[in-house]
């Protein structure tokens, strides 16, 4: 353990020691103060990365679309987030006359709080974690579902038909895409045998008795569906049809301005970043990696995942609302269930843990062989699902074409007559 690797731990111990020796508080109070400080730092980290990421995203998407992006404020537009922040602060804060004031004013706070609470369980390095809950993965997914309440509050509190409709649409989307998200976290939990995020990372590293294979290799289908539903869950393009910046006014937050709107925006971004972190932890091995210190690996991997989000936003067209729900309920959910059952059976048949094999029977294999089997089954599920979907879509298209051809022939006959 070198100084650099342990940097965050050393800083934490340093602050802890300073508070204890200077103020002479009881150990409990010192712990409480350090935890509070850590919480403030975590929230600040999320908010600052929100500021930075808006700039990076605007620049990157602009490059993809052959534009320049923000370039006026500061060198190469680097001060743009600060300019945006000042603009948000100084904007007039309007409230509709007929709004339900309590609900209207609380909604942005609730969404921001829910978004930030997720970070309490994310492990950034060994020992650098808010709290190591033994149900970490479950906690993140549950807290994510809490933001739905805030969206309904915003839609209702505004007392605006468009806001309410937008809230309905958003809730339908979020509730729907929670299902495949949960279904594809389950195989990872089964593999690791624990819901703690640290145990899940340990399972993917060689150091603590794990296999050393990141889950994305074992479960590519789960990773893909988790990514898709994660993007839909955070309502980012191409699933941003509840906001649809270029088509309709806005969704549930149409009546909000100034800092309250900024809080909604922050909630959305912080949630998206949390999904990127979750993807890193669940499928990319979290903070595990050679040479560089663990926290750098964690941030690098999450940044890479977030770059994929931006890349998708810059390149994909927005999908229609019926396509979105069809894809979720008719494709992602059934395929995920089939995949889940298959993974269960295969894990029972080919355990890599000697104790488990002893207890439950089955053929004991090495982790590498197990990984190969899981990878193959995932591929089969993915290809099979895609083939069925393509066939169905082709059938529907052919039927429609047939109908159109028949009508055309009729019209021709009528015209001739």
């Amino acid at each position, binding site marked *: 353990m070198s100084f650099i690797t342990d940097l965050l731990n050393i800083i934490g111990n340093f602050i802890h020691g300073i508070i204890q020796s200077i103020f002479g508080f009881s150990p409990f109070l010192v712990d409480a103060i350090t935890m509070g400080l850590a919480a403030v730092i975590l929230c600040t980290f999320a908010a600052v990365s929100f500021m930075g990421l808006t700039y990076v995203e605007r620049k990157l998407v602009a490059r993809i679309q052959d534009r320049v992006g923000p370039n006026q404020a500061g060198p190469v537009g680097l001060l743009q987030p600060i300019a945006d922040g000042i603009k948000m602060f100084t904007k007039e804060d309007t409230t509709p006359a007929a709004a*339900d004031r*309590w*609900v209207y004013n609380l909604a942005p706070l609730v969404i921001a709080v829910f978004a930030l609470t997720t970070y309490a369980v994310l492990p950034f390095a060994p020992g650098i974690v808010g709290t190591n*809950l*033994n*149900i970490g993965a*479950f*906690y993140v*997914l*549950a*807290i994510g*579902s*809490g933001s*739905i*309440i805030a969206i*309904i*509050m915003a839609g*209702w509190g505004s007392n605006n038909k468009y806001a*309410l409709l937008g809230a*309905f649409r958003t*809730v339908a989307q979020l*509730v729907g895409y*929670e299902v495949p998200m949960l279904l594809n976290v389950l195989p990872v939990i089964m593999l690791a045998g624990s*819901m703690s995020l640290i145990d899940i990372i340990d399972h993917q590293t060689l150091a603590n008795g794990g296999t050393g294979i990141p889950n994305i290799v074992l479960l590519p289908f789960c990773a893909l569906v988790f990514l898709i539903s994660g993007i839909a869950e955070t309502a980012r393009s191409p699933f941003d049809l509840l906001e649809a910046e270029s088509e309709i006014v806005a969704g549930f937050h149409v009546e909000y301005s100034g800092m309250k709107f900024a809080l909604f925006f922050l909630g959305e971004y912080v949630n998206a970043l949390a999904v990127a972190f979750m993807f890193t932890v669940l499928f990319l091995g979290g903070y595990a990696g050679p040479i560089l210190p663990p926290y750098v690996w964690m941030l690098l991997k999450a940044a890479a995942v977030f770059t994929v989000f931006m890349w998708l936003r810059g390149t994909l067209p927005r999908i229609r609302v019926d396509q979105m729900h069809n894809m979720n309920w008719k494709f992602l959910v059934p395929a995920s269930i089939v995949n889940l059952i298959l993974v269960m059976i295969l894990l029972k048949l080919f355990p890599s843990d000697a104790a488990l094999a002893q207890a439950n029977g089955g053929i004991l294999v090495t982790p590498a062989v197990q990984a190969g089997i899981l990878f193959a089954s995932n591929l089969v599920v993915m290809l099979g699902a895609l083939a069925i979907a393509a066939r169905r879509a082709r*059938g*529907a298209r052919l*039927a*429609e074409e047939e*109908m159109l051809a028949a009508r055309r022939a009729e019209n021709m006959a*009528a015209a001739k007559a």
Partner: protein
Amino acid sequence: MTLQLILFFVFSLVVLGAALFVVTSRNLFRSALMLVLSFFGVAGLYVLLDAGLFAVAQILIYIGAISILIIFAVMLTRGMQGMEPRNSQYVGAAVVAALVFAGMLFILGPFRVTFDPQSVPLLNLIFRNATPREVGAVAWPYALEQAGALRVVPETYIADFGRALVDINQYLLPFLLIALMVDVALAGAVHIARQRRPQEMIEDRQELEAEIASEQAAIEALQRSAAPALPDTAVAAGNEH
């Protein structure tokens, strides 16, 4: 006063205050939101009991799903704004609530009675071998702590809970029954909300078009018979389609 006790009172206050608001508020939507707050308080109580899994499940199921359902039902109820919900059944509700509360107090409170199944007419047929037993008095955790018997939640309680659900001697049957019920409900919902297949939709459309065409033909025939001197209208009607 330990910190746990203070937190317990805070959460209890949240639960009870929010619940009181739910039943007294005239605004249905605010009632539903306060119900959410009440659920949160319950989740907090679970955390105090070292039952993190149940706290998170409370948030996911009660806040993420059930209250959303309630709020949707409230919002989609026609004319809910300005409507003053009235209830003429509060006497019955109060009696039922009081009975349930009394029952819970009996089970959880410091009361113990000896119960002999043989003395009850129907039960003595079912439980023939049952002996008299003491009922009630599950000691409260706080009382236990006062008495020095600190509860310790085992580290493996999640795994134990999972095993209990699939153990044939414990909760396998209720678990399967609930799973079956949810399955049936899901299938029913899918059946009701089923979108018809493209082929069926095409057939429907063709039927509709045939109907329209026959009507059109009838109209044309009528027009011809009524005004044989005006062939232009018939041609226009034919071209229009």
